[in-house]
């Protein structure tokens, strides 16, 4: 890949973020893919045994759920904002609402607010039914190009 910006521009033009998602090793590791359903971006984490956090229930690891929420939020921020640079995450607050069963998990983000430098994204994750979310997160991203978040 020549640059993330090129991949993002191409993805936005074709309406297909798959090439970008496939270029990110951590998404492959978790089994995260993305699809656009009537113009809306939905992230999917396919079930696999390494996602288990509690083997006796069994339930998915909270960290894996958090990762899906965060990943979907990033893709939403990238997809719906003007930026072609991978947004930098500043803060994420995750509410775990229900135990996550060992099945495929989906997530969808919506903008709470989009500013010039900061975007706030709210993401829901669900399994069988969107009416019964298993987790919800609020994530804050910097979309401006900065050298180091920590140095500001």
């Amino acid at each position: 890949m020549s640059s993330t910006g090129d991949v993002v521009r191409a993805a936005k033009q074709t309406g297909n973020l798959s090439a970008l998602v496939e270029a990110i090793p951590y998404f492959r590791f978790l089994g995260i893919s993305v699809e656009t359903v009537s113009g809306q971006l939905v992230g999917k984490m396919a079930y696999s045994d390494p996602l288990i956090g509690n083997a006796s229930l069994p339930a998915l690891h909270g960290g894996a759920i958090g990762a899906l929420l965060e990943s979907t939020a990033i893709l939403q921020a990238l997809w719906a904002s003007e930026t072609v640079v991978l947004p930098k995450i500043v803060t994420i607050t995750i509410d775990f609402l229900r135990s996550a069963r060992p099945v495929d998990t989906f997530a969808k983000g919506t903008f709470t607010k989009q500013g010039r430098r900061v975007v706030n994204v709210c993401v829901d994750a669900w399994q069988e039914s969107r009416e019964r979310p298993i987790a919800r997160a609020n994530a804050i991203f910097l979309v401006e190009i900065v050298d180091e978040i920590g140095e500001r």
Partner: protein
Amino acid sequence: MSRQSNEPAQGADSERMARLVENIARFVPHNRALGVRFVSLTAGRVTLALPYDEKLVGNPLTGVVHGGAITALLDAACGLAVLVKLGKPIPVATLDLRIDYLRPATPQKEVHACAECFRVTQNVAFVRCDAFHADGEKEFVAVANGTFILFRRQTRAGADEAP
């Protein structure tokens, strides 16, 4: 619960708790997949490590590990800190976790997470956790605050301590 169980375990108890925490950390499939390793249990603080691995990279251009992997590490360390505070392995579940990413993790460097449970009530445990590079000067990567719900067993008929 008795006040005594709120104190960090001492001596042999501490060693036994360290082995217990190490085994739980190792037993969790997602921890194993991430490569999470138990480092220490000192004065009630649980430290885990996430070795650098190409498969965890979130930005292929910079080689920086994805925030989600750090989230999983922090969540794992926080959960174990709750068990340490309780002094026994009762089931707990994350209610909420807030993570501030202070700076991107440096590629090739291991990330450590040190968690401490600073308050438990009948139903809820409160935890904070730091993620940092431990080699050389301690460099903070993220800080987290979490709350956990406790699933205590029934103590007598009709009196369920669970929520």
